[in-house]
């Protein structure tokens, strides 16, 4: 009697399915690299730059996943707070590392406030956190526009005419972050095999990773995992569920704000009204590509994801051009893949959630059968 036990084939199938998104992406990247004709050196340099640029942002997504709140589409809130910080330091003309640190200090209270608000709202919408946080992103974007497009100038003083629109108030569509361009990247840039590596940025990211590892083991981290497993059980165990959930979103938002500042110091220009909206989608897609799911994500997923996702991003226009003769097609392709990946990962997660229930039941039945047999 072992019909109920898992066969090897099923186990293998499970592993494949768990990593379906990553495997699919590996294939896309392999084909893309072959057809793009880029040299390995060029690709390596691009990947290093992009890993340094994006990792911090993506790591900020991990804590809400730990607390069972799914993918935090509300990370755009943090990004907006970071951008507000950057606008202020550009106006005050503070450059270099001090400027970045000051921007981070300015962004912290804004992020914390927005994160607290977001957490409060998400507590009212348990079970549909993702779609709610997604809409919160849009909602706060409206308020961000109100402040930046209309408030900055008449209400919040901005002196630098290079920042302000010609009509006299509101921030320009693109802000040149000349003062802090590559401020962090160039502190300790070393060259290895002809590739320039922004070591300082990587050190900052490594510190954040250490923090994450420590955090997972701390009291708060354990509480979050308990809440993520089962809210009712956690509440019975004396954990303040609502409070813990809010804290997880607040931390995530603050980290996203810092991540956005690191991202923009590398880019060097700020698209005042667009940067933050795209960043949420790209970060989430990258995390999912790395094999994370709605309820399970690790630091390894972040780095695998950011590498694979950006590899696809770099090669697809060129591959599209060489393959079909239209670079535009490759560009549409990568947009499609970014959205398709999120869709696929969400669908797989929901299907797996339903299937794992039946599977767990079946395995339990087999265990009990075995136990009965042994008794006999």
């Amino acid at each position: 009697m072992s019909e109920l036990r898992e066969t090897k084939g099923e186990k293998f199938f499970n592993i494949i399915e768990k990593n379906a998104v990553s495997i699919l992406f590996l294939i896309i990247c392999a084909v893309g690299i072959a057809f793009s004709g880029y040299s390995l050196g060029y690709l390596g340099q691009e990947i290093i730059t992009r890993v340094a640029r994006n990792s911090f942002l993506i790591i900020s997504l991990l804590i809400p996943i730990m607390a069972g709140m799914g993918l935090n589409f509300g990370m755009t809130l943090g990004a907006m707070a970071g951008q507000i910080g950057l606008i202020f330091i550009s106006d005050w003309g503070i450059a270099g590392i001090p400027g970045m640190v000051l921007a981070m200090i300015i962004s912290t209270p804004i992020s914390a406030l927005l994160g607290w608000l977001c957490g409060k709202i998400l507590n009212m919408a348990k079970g549909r956190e993702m779609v709610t946080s997604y809409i919160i992103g849009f909602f706060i974007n409206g308020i961000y526009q109100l402040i930046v497009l209309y408030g900055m100038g008449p209400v919040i003083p901005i002196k630098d005419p290079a920042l302000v629109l010609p009509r006299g108030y509101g921030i320009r569509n693109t802000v040149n972050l000349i003062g802090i361009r590559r401020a962090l990247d160039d502190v300790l840039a070393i060259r290895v095999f002809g590739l320039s590596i922004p070591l300082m940025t990587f050190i900052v990211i490594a510190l954040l990773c250490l923090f994450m590892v420590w955090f997972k083991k701390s009291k708060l981290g354990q509480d979050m995992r308990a809440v993520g497993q089962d809210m009712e059980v956690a509440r019975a165990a004396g954990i303040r569920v609502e409070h813990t959930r809010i804290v997880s979103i607040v931390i995530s938002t603050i980290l996203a704000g810092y991540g956005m500042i690191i991202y923009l110091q590398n880019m060097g220009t700020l698209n005042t009204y667009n940067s933050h909206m795209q960043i949420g989608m790209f970060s989430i897609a990258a995390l999912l590509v790395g094999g994370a799911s709605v309820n399970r994500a690790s630091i390894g997923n972040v780095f695998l994801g950011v590498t694979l996702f950006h590899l696809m991003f770099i090669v697809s226009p060129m591959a599209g051009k060489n393959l079909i003769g239209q670079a535009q097609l490759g560009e549409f392709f990568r947009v499609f893949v970014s959205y398709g990946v999120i869709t696929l990962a969400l669908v797989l997660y929901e299907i797996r959630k339903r299937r794992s229930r039946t599977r767990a039941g079946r395995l339990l039945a087999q265990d009990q059968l075995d136990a009965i047999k042994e008794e006999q």
Partner: protein
Amino acid sequence: MTKIRKFMKSFGWPRIIIGLFLLSLFIIAPFVGVNLGTSLSDTLIRFGMNSVLVLAMVPMIHSGCGLNFGLPLGIIAGLLGGTLSIQFGFTGGLSFLMAIILATPFGLLFGWGYGSLLNRVKGGEMMIATYVGFSSVAFMCMMWLILPYNHPTMIWGYAGSGLRTTISTEGFYLHTLNNFLQIQIGEKLIIPTGMILFFALMAFLVWAFLHTKTGTAMTAVGSNPVFARASGINIDRTRTLSVMMSTWLGAIGILVYQQSFGFIQLYMGPFYMALPAVSAILIGGASVNKASITNVVIGTLFFQGILTMTPSVMNSIIHTDMSEVIRIVVSNGMILYALTRKSEVSR
């Protein structure tokens, strides 16, 4: 007094605020030099343009599939119908009819696939619907480039292939419905009777359907799936049917929109079209699992009224166009309000 309070409660304070806001806009309008006739007819035209798209929310909400954030999928079916109708050389009013006929199989097919997908992800429909919409738009971006269209008004002149970003419907189905039985009162006030009649027809069809046996079953599935299953209703089939209806209505909705707007917007055009429709029906008093035709009418009138009135009135008062920001805050705030209501969460 209790009656008023009861009415207030059933109507909901956000709707009352929005209603009062709109009313005050209409009252202020003449004093700041905005023509009331123009505003009214603009509101009516926008109502006609968008109402069928908002109506596309109703079947899915009824069957418990939540808000149809996947509306872009239906819109794509409509775009295929419209472009094919032009491609096959139909002109004038006939092209509109043909567009509807050609869009129908796509709408039903997409709806069937989309519905089957949503049946596998019960409980997480809304987020997945959003991303189904996004990825289908992105997928069609590629398709518009490589599908073998060759009607000269639609393709890029220099490349000789690939559809343009915007295609004019002039000479095809521009204003087919707008001009049908159009009533002009005075100089400025125009009532697009045809478009409103068309919406009334569609709304009547949906209303009538919801009162048939299948329609009642749909409502039962939405309000209490366990009870529905106990009474022998095939839940998955009913849900798929509702999604097919929503998708088809989305296809028709975008055709109505285009015939008034004057352009077919391809590529990233349909990307954010779901959000205004979703918030319109919510402003009308619908919730995540309850919606009626009245909600559609009130919601679209309110939402489009605000969209029409704020730019002109605001511009005249403070010489700044803040309408875009107001639109974002109002529409997304409304969706948030609906998503966070306690009674709806424990479904």
